[in-house]
């Protein structure tokens, strides 16, 4: 049976087969841990072409996992979660919601979604929040992933699709810049396209404060100071202009705003850029020349430049560079964002974002409201307005902030949010916390109700991958007794909240048809996509406005999505990060990922093979800094920020700048890297600054516990 991986936005095609009772030769894995299915990469799926990573390969272990929850749980008088029937659990949730709404108003209710949810779920959750809860407060963890790139692309191009071209175009470009992206670890099967590019003689440039596995294979590795991506990108744009490398004809024909940008960048001072970024002028020039000389060139950004308080401006500066050099909209060229979460793309298109309605419509636009109200059969007046963004929403939990009930779907916010201790305190102050998931996690530790759900292989739904390709993740087996799908839960709760008529079906294909109708004519138009078409075409790229439309693999070749068809160059002024090292906290701290784990680790920390490979987060430190601090490989290091402290085990490595510490954020509790991070937000995208804050560190004597 064909389906897709439950993890990242690459959405590898997989072949899943029920396993023979005694499969030989799998000694590497605990047979108990992988009882039901064999997972193989799908050779035919054109994105991963027979490759996967260890996360997807072991994903079947989640299905029949010992720790999986299949019975609803309610917080009992003793404070423990105790098993309950579905009716009891749903009644409890509905009664509490109604009571809170009666007493404090609908604004006291909130829903929190996820980039892991299918399009159908994201759509229905947005509708549920607005119509069943009646609250403006819905947002999702995609805020923590792609929001800066989305904001940047919308401003520059008038449209945000992570990559405006299929991933196969990577192999056809001549120079590929991966800026703050580490696919060799986070998306290993993507590297086959990079390998193919390099076999053709193309060049790879990696921009990253760490020499990652991706940087190791690069022709040029640029290692900037954390938080200086914007300055570096602006510096490259300034060099492109001063070196006479601007594609004048392209800029004149396809963009606006050049003159203001040119004048602004005249004030860029190369020595200053060099001093702040730590990237030599020679290297800056090399990058500009490589990109300008290349017939085809591509800049792809990852979370590095995006997860900053100036993330959306940094994306704009990268787009400026691509536009100045005349690359966007040309074959195998341009700018793209490597979306992270499985459905980070679709999740941000269908209305689970505080300011949006399905199809990338805006909740504050009267026409968009009217259109959606018509599809939903309600009066536009009854649609709430714009709600709070993810971190602001979580920060408003509890009596102080006024949000008293939170329903969480597919997200482990206690681990994934910056300044994690603060969020844990806020979660604990809720009158009602409902978590809908397959495993208990750090967030559900605060839940009053836990609703067990079907997992990836147990329900069908569409995902929109990093290319903007809508794919169908098919069910490969029924859900175990006791688990329900998110769609069923939403419909059942809506009925109890008196909105049942607006939620007539929990059947994915029916919901998808409604989603299609809701997006007809919108920027992210899915109205011509059907399950059958996805099966026939190995996915369909949006926009796809009619049943006979084949979909749109490549965007912008003729025009951009602004009314005048032109892209916008933006003046983006550099500024310091929210927190930079000082005498008290003299080091940079940055966060990222391991190959073996995914996001908050809620799933991957359940998989034996993954935990065996990477049992804990280790703080990466340069030998020179380690020597100064007296830290040793395998020893312990106490890392402190203004918000909290974490004792990490140490990994000494020359692959990181000597002024920077790195730790992955996949763990919760005392090992949570996000205890340290700063909750400064990008003013446009509301993305938190996960990638840079100031810390101090001291080696702990052996034998001191965390």
């Amino acid at each position, binding site marked *: 049976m064909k389906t897709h991986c439950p993890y990242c936005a690459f959405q590898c095609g997989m072949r899943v087969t029920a396993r023979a009772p005694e499969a030989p030769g799998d000694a590497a894995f605990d047979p108990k841990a992988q009882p039901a299915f064999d997972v193989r*990469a799908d050779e035919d799926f054109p994105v991963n072409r027979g490759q*996967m990573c260890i996360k997807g390969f072991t994903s079947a272990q989640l299905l029949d996992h010992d720790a999986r929850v299949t019975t609803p749980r309610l917080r009992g008088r003793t404070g423990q979660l105790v098993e309950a029937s579905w009716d009891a659990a749903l009644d409890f949730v509905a009664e509490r919601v109604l009571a809170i709404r009666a007493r404090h108003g609908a604004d006291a209710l909130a829903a929190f979604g996820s980039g892991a949810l299918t399009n159908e779920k994201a759509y229905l959750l947005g509708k549920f929040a607005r119509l069943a809860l009646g609250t403006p407060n819905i947002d999702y963890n995609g805020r923590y992933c792609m929001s800066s790139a989305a904001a940047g692309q919308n401003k520059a191009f008038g449209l945000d699709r992570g990559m405006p071209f299929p991933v196969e175009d990577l192999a056809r470009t001549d120079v590929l810049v991966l800026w703050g992206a580490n696919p060799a670890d986070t998306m290993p099967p993507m590297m086959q396209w990079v390998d193919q590019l390099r076999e053709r003689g193309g060049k790879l440039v990696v921009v990253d404060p760490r020499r990652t596995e991706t940087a190791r294979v690069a022709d040029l590795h640029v290692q900037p100071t954390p938080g200086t991506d914007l300055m570096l990108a602006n510096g490259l744009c300034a060099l492109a202009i001063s070196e006479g490398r601007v594609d004048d004809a392209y800029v004149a024909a396809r963009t606006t705003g050049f003159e203001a940008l040119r004048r602004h960048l005249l*004030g860029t001072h190369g020595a200053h850029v060099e*001093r702040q970024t730590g990237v030599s002028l020679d290297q800056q020039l090399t990058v500009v020349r490589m990109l300008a000389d290349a017939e085809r060139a591509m800049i792809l950004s990852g979370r590095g430049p995006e997860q900053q308080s100036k993330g959306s401006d940094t994306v704009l500066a990268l787009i400026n560079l691509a536009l100045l050099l005349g690359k966007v909209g040309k074959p195998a060229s341009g700018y793209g964002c490597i979306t992270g979460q499985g459905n980070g793309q679709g999740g941000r298109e269908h209305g689970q974002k505080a300011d949006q309605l399905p199809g990338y419509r805006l909740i504050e636009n009267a026409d968009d409201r009217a259109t959606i109200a018509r599809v939903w059969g309600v009066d536009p007046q009854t649609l709430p307005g714009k709600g709070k963004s993810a971190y602001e929403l979580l920060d408003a939990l509890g009596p102080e902030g006024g949000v008293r009930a939170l329903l969480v779907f597919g997200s482990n916010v206690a681990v994934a949010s910056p300044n994690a201790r603060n969020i844990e305190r806020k979660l604990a102050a809720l009158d009602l916390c409902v978590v809908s998931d397959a495993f208990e996690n750090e967030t559900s530790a605060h839940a009053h109700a836990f609703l067990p759900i079907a997992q990836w292989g147990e329900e069908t739904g569409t995902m929109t991958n990093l290319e903007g390709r809508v794919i169908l993740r098919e069910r490969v087996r029924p859900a175990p007794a006791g688990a329900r799908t998110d769609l069923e839960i939403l419909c059942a709760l809506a009925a109890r909240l008196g909105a049942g008529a607006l939620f007539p079906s929990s059947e994915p294909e029916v919901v998808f048809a409604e989603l299609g109708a809701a997006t007809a004519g919108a920027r992210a138009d899915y109205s011509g996509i059907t399950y059958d078409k996805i099966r026939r075409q190995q996915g369909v790229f949006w926009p796809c406005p009619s049943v006979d439309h084949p979909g749109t693999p490549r965007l912008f070749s003729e025009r951009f999505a602004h009314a005048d068809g032109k892209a916008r160059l933006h003046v983006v002024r550099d500024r310091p990060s929210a927190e930079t090292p000082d005498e008290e906290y003299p080091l940079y701290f940055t966060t990222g990922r391991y190959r073996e784990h995914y996001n908050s680790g809620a799933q991957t920390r359940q998989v034996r093979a993954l935990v065996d490979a990477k049992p804990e987060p280790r703080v990466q430190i340069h*030998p020179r800094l380690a020597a100064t601090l007296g830290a040793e490989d395998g020893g312990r290091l106490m890392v402190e920020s203004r918000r909290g402290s974490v004792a990490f085990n140490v990994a000494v490595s020359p692959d990181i700048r000597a002024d920077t510490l790195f730790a992955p954020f996949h763990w919760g509790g005392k090992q949570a890297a996000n205890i340290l991070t700063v909750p400064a937000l990008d003013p446009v995208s509301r993305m938190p600054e996960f990638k840079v804050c100031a810390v101090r560190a001291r080696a702990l004597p052996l034998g001191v516990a965390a």
Partner: protein
Amino acid sequence: MGKRRLVIVGNGMATCRLLDELVARGATARYDITVYGEEPSGTYNRILLSRVLAGEAPDVIVTKDAAWFAERGITLCSGVAVTRLDTTRKVVETSDGGAHRYDTAVIATGSQPLVPAIEGATVAGGALRRGVFVYRTIADCLAMREHARPGSSAIVLGGGLLGLEAAKALSDGGLHVTVVHASATLMNAQLDPMAGEMLARQVEGFGMFVKLGCTIESIHGDGPDNDVALDPAPRDGAVESVTLDDGKRLPADMVVLACGVRPRVDVAKASGLPVNKGIIVNDALATEVPGVYALGECAEHRGRTYGIVAPAWEQAAVLADVLTGAGPQARYKGSKLYVRLKVAGVDVATMGTMDPELETDDVLEIVEQRRNAYRKLIMREGRLVGAMLVGNTAAAASLVQLFDRGDAMPADPLEALCPTMVAGPVAADERVVCNCNKVTEAGVCAAIDSGCASVEAIGGATRAGTGCGSCKNELTRLLKRHAPPRPPLAAVG
């Protein structure tokens, strides 16, 4: 409460940055801002003047044109000089007889070129002789362009940064250029003798002539009677020749005086502000007189004046914080200097001290005579206190960060010069290639050595690549790299 009136005197680079910093802090909501600039143009980047000298339109270096000011509601009075501030009545007096109230004034009058007392440099009335130029403004560059002709000759007095920049531009324009420099080496303010000599070689390599250790004694103009022997007194005509202090006389169609600058303090003096070398300011960039601030090259802070742009930028950020209340406690503590030049085609980076100052200072010098490259580090107690890089500036970026932060130098300072050379502690062959089955590179290579000739064969022997499959490309690469050479075709069965 109405908006307060903020007046900025001067429209140079410090003002340009200050305006950006003010706007970024929303100052236009709090202040009506008026900028007085003596020059007719908008704000421009003086560092790029050589582009104008080389023939580009002045507008290419204008950073803020009239539209920029208009869009932000900031008033630009260009071509108007401020003569003084009446600091008790809080009035700005201008050269056109105007008087305008202010609440807060910022003086950013920058520097002016030094014109040395050379006989014949000026004519009656004190103006520069025709053909004699300074190099400071767009107007200076346009005047030079007007005068310079390919094949004619120019003497540049001053082998510092500006002089060499002007010399290069004129030389590129086809002029015969001689740089006359009083010190024994070029750019002696930034470079030590070794570096200066390298630079001189390079400058000569570009087709210019360098005369060190001498200066111009007198400048001679042409006149009705051109017979110097009969009438050695300089005339009022255009430059014809110069006499050096060693007695030699050189013909010259133009002379560029690039002998340095000094803070421009005329307005401050006329306004009764305390002035030493520059206008004296404290850590908040305030002068002693309430309501009056100063920044940039005209300001003297803790006894220092600065002649490069970076300190002015740092001061602009502090002053904007103070004036807008965005950071009322922001204070300027002085700047560490980092100079980065491309002069006569040579990349130069210098920071901190040029030579060891204490007996305990340590120096590392690397000289590559044939490559014309020179790198020098000065260390004090394991920290970098100075560096000079000529011809090879690859390490400049990482060195300046070590210098700025006072971080510990690597045990071996050579490491600091090679930022991209990283030695891994994990031997390559211990690296895990297949992480599904935990097979190392060494394991894969051993399999290849023992005869595995395909990815499948390696998988059979080691299980590498039999999991998720994402390491198959890596296995192919290792096969290519480690496979024994194929026997000749004929030998294959």
